[in-house]
């Protein structure tokens, strides 16, 4: 999930699928009825859903692909892949999966450097491309961590936007087989005294805190930065870290012909299907007004139950594959799991438990409802999985089966509305080498050097400067924020705020633990994105190192303006090159991260803001070095220039 504008939607289909073997739901809610078959239905498309058969017979029907964010050539390619026009549901799925956010179409060519320049490592069990990077830290244990942005939603509805940002990154960690053990948050707002900051900041902080606290995850650090460039576009970057026994590592491949596809967790509603409403308005004359973009609302209690249920399922060895449902909902989970295994799937969309029975197939496929996971389960183990779900009070519904057809086939009310090669959605999206140009004002900015500023000359001036700095929003005490976060829960927090890094004990017996820091500096990156990215890396690396930990891995959240602006693209390319080079020099790999483009207000992009997280390992957390003076008479030594 990120700040990129949402797109989406279409539908399609041909032929039918038959349905899923089993259906069970847990008693978490009272609202009855998981299958929408009994729904009072608004007429869809006049004569019914836009099926694959219909798409084949109406090749010239106009489709709102431009409104969904697809270009002419992208739409043409979809038609070529399918050999017909896409159905409405299919169009929705391509527009989602080929969006910047899901396909990384503008960033892919640059991000390759992270892998190319990464040092050889045999402790990296999963890297870029997985839900989160996984690093082995002892014979038996591994750690997984990742940062992600939820910028735009946090501007629209600060509390829920930030809350669901935390929820989303935690599910990524969970999907790797790990128990999430901590979160961090890096926040950027407009000017501290701007009236809208008063709306955004408290909401974001209560959202981050509310969700993390209710999940029982200690918050062990982060940043709060103010700069007018973030006024209309705050940055909410959340990091989560988890720990797993090495042999519990999960993957997302929907392997095994005949295996059952189970949706676990919350019901599906019209959350975050703003982009898709384009399709609604294209096909409905009346009533589409109520279908406007719907904010995603988080339910941390449901997520806590989901975590416990998943961990129990992992430990009992009940599943073949798992994927979290994030920004692109079922569309992404179904196509990625099938594509990762090179398999097909037959899914009966009628079985998805819905919050609103009147939802259309494209809405179900595009919904960003939170607190859901997709499981791939051998038929013999389905009952055991359903029993675990029942125990924890979360819904579990078999939606269909894995096939060897190589096609993702989705039916709705007995008709096939999607029939596509899953790889065309998940892996074969467009890739662009966008034009790049150094911003023309850069020379001027760089010429305006700090040396030209007046320096305090007298004791009074110096005193005044120090006081002004200490009181400035970017340097002042952050307790108002950090007090709203639980840093004690789980009982393994060794260092948290106000320390430079969070330090968490992993193994109570040996004292094995990890250190984490999350840092960025958009102002510096604006002046020099290459070195700005390196600087963020160096800061996080130093923060981890000074606790006594050995830095072992990097995650990042790359927050930039529009990639269609060549100067932004240049900033991005430079920052990626800087981060990749920095990691190469330090000898640690980037194991995962997130790109958030389109962070701008009108034509004005934010400062390029690469935020970098570094993970370190400590063999005995009792030896950690806290900051601050510990005893009278200690000697101060300044290292470096």
């Amino acid at each position, binding site marked *: 999930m990120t700040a990129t504008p949402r797109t989406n939607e279409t539908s399609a289909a041909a032929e039918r699928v038959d349905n899923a073997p089993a259906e069970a739901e847990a*008693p978490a*809610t*009272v*609202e009855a009825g998981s299958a929408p078959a009994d729904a009072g239905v608004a007429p869809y498309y006049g004569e019914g859903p836009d099926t694959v058969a219909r798409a084949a017979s109406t090749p010239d029907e106009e489709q709102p692909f431009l409104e969904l964010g697809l270009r002419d050539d992208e739409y043409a390619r979809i038609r070529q892949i399918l050999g017909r026009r896409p159905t409405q549901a299919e169009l929705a799925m391509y527009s989602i999966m080929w969006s910047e956010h899901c396909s990384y179409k503008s960033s892919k060519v640059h991000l390759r450097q992270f892998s190319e320049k990464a040092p050889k490592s045999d402790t990296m069990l999963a890297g870029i491309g997985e839900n989160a990077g996984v690093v082995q830290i002892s014979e038996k244990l591994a750690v997984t961590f990742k940062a992600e942005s939820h910028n735009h939603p946090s501007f*629209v509805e600060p509390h829920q936007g930030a809350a669901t940002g935390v929820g989303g990154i935690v599910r990524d960690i969970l999907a790797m087989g790990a128990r999430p053990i901590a979160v961090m948050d890096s926040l950027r707002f407009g000017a501290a005294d701007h009236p809208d900051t008063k709306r955004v900041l408290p909401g974001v902080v209560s959202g981050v805190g509310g969700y993390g606290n209710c999940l029982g995850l200690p918050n062990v650090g982060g940043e709060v930065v103010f700069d007018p460039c973030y006024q209309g576009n705050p940055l909410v970057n959340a990091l989560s870290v988890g720990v797993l026994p090495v042999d519990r590592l999960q993957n997302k491949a929907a392997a095994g012909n005949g295996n059952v596809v189970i949706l676990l967790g919350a019901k599906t*509603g019209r959350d975050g299907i703003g982009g898709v409403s384009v399709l609604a308005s294209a096909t409905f004359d009346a009533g589409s007004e109520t279908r406007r973009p*719907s*904010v995603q609302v988080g339910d941390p209690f*449901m997520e806590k139950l989901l975590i416990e249920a998943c961990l129990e399922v992992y430990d009992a060895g009940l599943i073949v594959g798992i994927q979290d449902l994030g920004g692109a909902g079922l569309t992404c989970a179904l196509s990625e799991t099938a594509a990762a295994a090179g398999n097909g799937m037959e899914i009966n969309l009628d079985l998805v438990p819905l919050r609103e029975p009147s939802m259309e197939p494209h809405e179900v496929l595009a919904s960003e409802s939170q607190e859901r996971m997709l499981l791939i389960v051998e038929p013999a183990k389905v009952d055991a999985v359903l029993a675990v779900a029942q125990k924890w009070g979360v819904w579990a519904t078999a939606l269909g089966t894995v096939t060897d057809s190589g096609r993702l086939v989705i039916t709705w009310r007995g008709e096939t509305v999607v029939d596509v090669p899953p790889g065309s959605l998940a892996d074969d999206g467009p890739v662009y080498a966008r034009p790049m140009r150094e911003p023309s004002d850069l020379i001027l900015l760089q010429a305006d050097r700090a040396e030209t500023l007046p320096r305090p000359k007298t004791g009074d001036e110096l005193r005044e400067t120090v006081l002004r700095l200490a009181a400035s929003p970017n340097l002042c005490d952050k307790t108002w924020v950090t007090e709203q976060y639980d840093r004690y829960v789980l009982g393994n927090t060794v260092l948290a705020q106000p320390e430079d890094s969070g330090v968490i004990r992993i193994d109570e017996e040996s004292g094995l633990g990890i250190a984490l820091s999350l840092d960025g500096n958009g102002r510096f990156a604006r002046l020099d994105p290459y070195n700005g990215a390196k600087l963020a890396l160096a800061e996080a690396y130093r923060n981890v190192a000074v606790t006594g930990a050995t830095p072992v891995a990097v995650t990042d959240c790359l927050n930039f303006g529009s990639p269609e602006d060549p100067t932004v693209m240049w900033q991005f390319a430079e920052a990626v090159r800087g981060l990749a080079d920095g990691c190469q020099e330090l000898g640690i790999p980037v194991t995962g991260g997130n790109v958030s483009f389109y962070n701008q207000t009108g034509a004005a992009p934010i400062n390029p803001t690469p935020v970098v997280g570094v993970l370190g390992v400590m063999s005995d957390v009792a030896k950690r070095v806290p900051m601050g003076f510990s005893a009278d008479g200690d000697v101060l030594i300044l290292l470096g220039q």
Partner: protein
Amino acid sequence: MARVVVDVMLKPEILDPQGQAVAGALPQLGIGNVRSVRIGKHIEIEFDGEADLDRAREIADKLLANPVIEDFTLRVEELEEADQ
């Protein structure tokens, strides 16, 4: 002196985790015939003089409800009517 009552509810399409949790707990109390529970806010604004519906609407709009996810209704209530 009079009172304006504002009820603020999540829009129907927005997830209501509170209501869901309560609904889920009812079977434990032996109650099975409830289809759904939705939970919102009930706000009583007392004015110094007359009940001022326009002012109340302004307060609801700016402070009490979040228009992105919530709707509200307003009504004037006579003050004799005691609670409960």
